[in-house]
């Protein structure tokens, strides 16, 4: 009887160790840009860090839409599950090089500038190549101006977060 109890307890201990090992071994990767690491499982809580896409995480705990994670640099906190994948994100092949730098720089703005588009101003936003194409094809100024206005609109992270919050989407859902 006593021996049975010892075996039972040992098996229980092994199961506990095994399951703890499985949890600690569970890996995940940040799958979105600028994913916020939060102090608690709540979008309104303090952002303790912004994690780059591809950051490897150890999943410590899950709570509905949130995961408690730890990075290799020992940053610990909660992340919205939609920002996490079970495998490393594929690297896009944009080949952006230095040419994209200016464009991405514009994205850091915090306001959507659609309101500021002025249809009376000159066509200045199209690339020299697109302007040349328009010239070669006799594309009217109306179409060029239309495109210019489209690519003049910039959206920043703060705009998107505000928009998600207003719509109660993702990490801002009830």
């Amino acid at each position, binding site marked *: 009887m006593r021996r049975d109890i010892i075996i039972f307890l040992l098996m229980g201990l092994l199961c506990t160790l095994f399951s703890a090992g499985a949890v600690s071994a569970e890996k995940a990767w940040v*799958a*979105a*840009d*600028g994913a916020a690491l939060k102090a608690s499982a709540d979008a309104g809580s303090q952002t303790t860090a912004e994690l780059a*896409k591809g950051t490897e995480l150890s999943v410590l705990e899950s709570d509905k839409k949130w995961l408690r994670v730890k990075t290799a640099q020992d940053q610990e906190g909660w992340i919205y599950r*939609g*920002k996490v994948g079970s495998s490393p*994100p*594929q690297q*896009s*092949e*944009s*080949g*952006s*090089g230095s*040419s*994209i730098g200016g*464009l*991405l720089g*514009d*994205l850091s703005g915090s306001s*959507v500038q*659609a*309101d500021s*588009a002025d249809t009376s101003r000159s066509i200045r936003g*199209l*690339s*020299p*190549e*697109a302007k*040349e*194409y*328009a010239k*070669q*094809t006799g*594309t009217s100024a*109306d*179409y*060029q101006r*239309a*495109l210019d*206005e*489209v*690519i003049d*609109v*910039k*959206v920043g992270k703060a*705009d*998107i977060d505000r*928009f*998600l919050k*207003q*719509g*109660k*989407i*993702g*990490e*801002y*859902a009830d």
Partner: protein
Amino acid sequence: MLLIQNRQAQPETETRSISRRGLLHMLGPLALLLADPALALDLFKVLDPEGKSKDLQKAKQIVQGAGSIMASATDLDYKSEFAIGESLALEGFKRYGLPVKNKEVQKYITLVGNTVARNALRTDIPYYFVLVNSSLYNAFACPGGIIFLSAALFKAMNDESELATVLAHEVAHVSHKHALQSIRRAKFFEGVGQITTANMKGADGQKFRNMIGGLQDVLFDQGLDQNMEFEADLSGMECAYRTGYDPTGFVRVLEMLQTRQGGADKKGSWFSTHPPLPERIQKCRSKTADYPDAKTLATVKERFIAYRAQV
């Protein structure tokens, strides 16, 4: 740059020095190359695992070079890709009309689009969205991230999750560079690695315009390869789900289009440029099994309807 370098790397003299036996060995991998270059290279490993055959090694080098040639149109730098996208967008306005004159609605669509794009495969480029005055049910993506949505399709939707999934589908096309893949054999890319104003003139300029014409054929009339559409369907649903939108919104859009297909003008619309709806609906419905909590996710109907009423 990419195309010409790859061709220069394999001088003709090398191909002439391969024996008949080597050429025979090459036939299998070359045939496979058309379908799957990686598989072709695997076959070389089987034929000559230790790399002792000089003929086979030469043949392998050629196959590797050819594979690079076929893939290289998608390796354009972003600036060049965007120049193609801008040129195609100009043609898009000619074909589908000018933007809807409502800055608030344009801003709304831009926000929905960028919200899902943040969770896309390709997040290191900016995305632009425009609602155009068109009575055709359509949406398409220009290389580089300029995405068009027709007013007809927008007005036929019922909530924001439907809009989000359609825009996510188009973002997926940009992420996977589907349009560029479809024109990778265009003559313009032979000898051109980067697009500048210099190669927009003269004979190169004509080739560029021909390439844009080819893109119009693909995106406005014939449609992309069906597998690309299915890939974008599933990728877009996943992207919307990650954002927090109900991914079944996409199935609802497809079902709505199916009910309207009979009386709709098909030329230049989603009906003519996308795979048959029943097959797509079936595939997307199957995918929803991956999202057991879909019904708890956001549809944001009220906000959507408020903006839709302005168009």
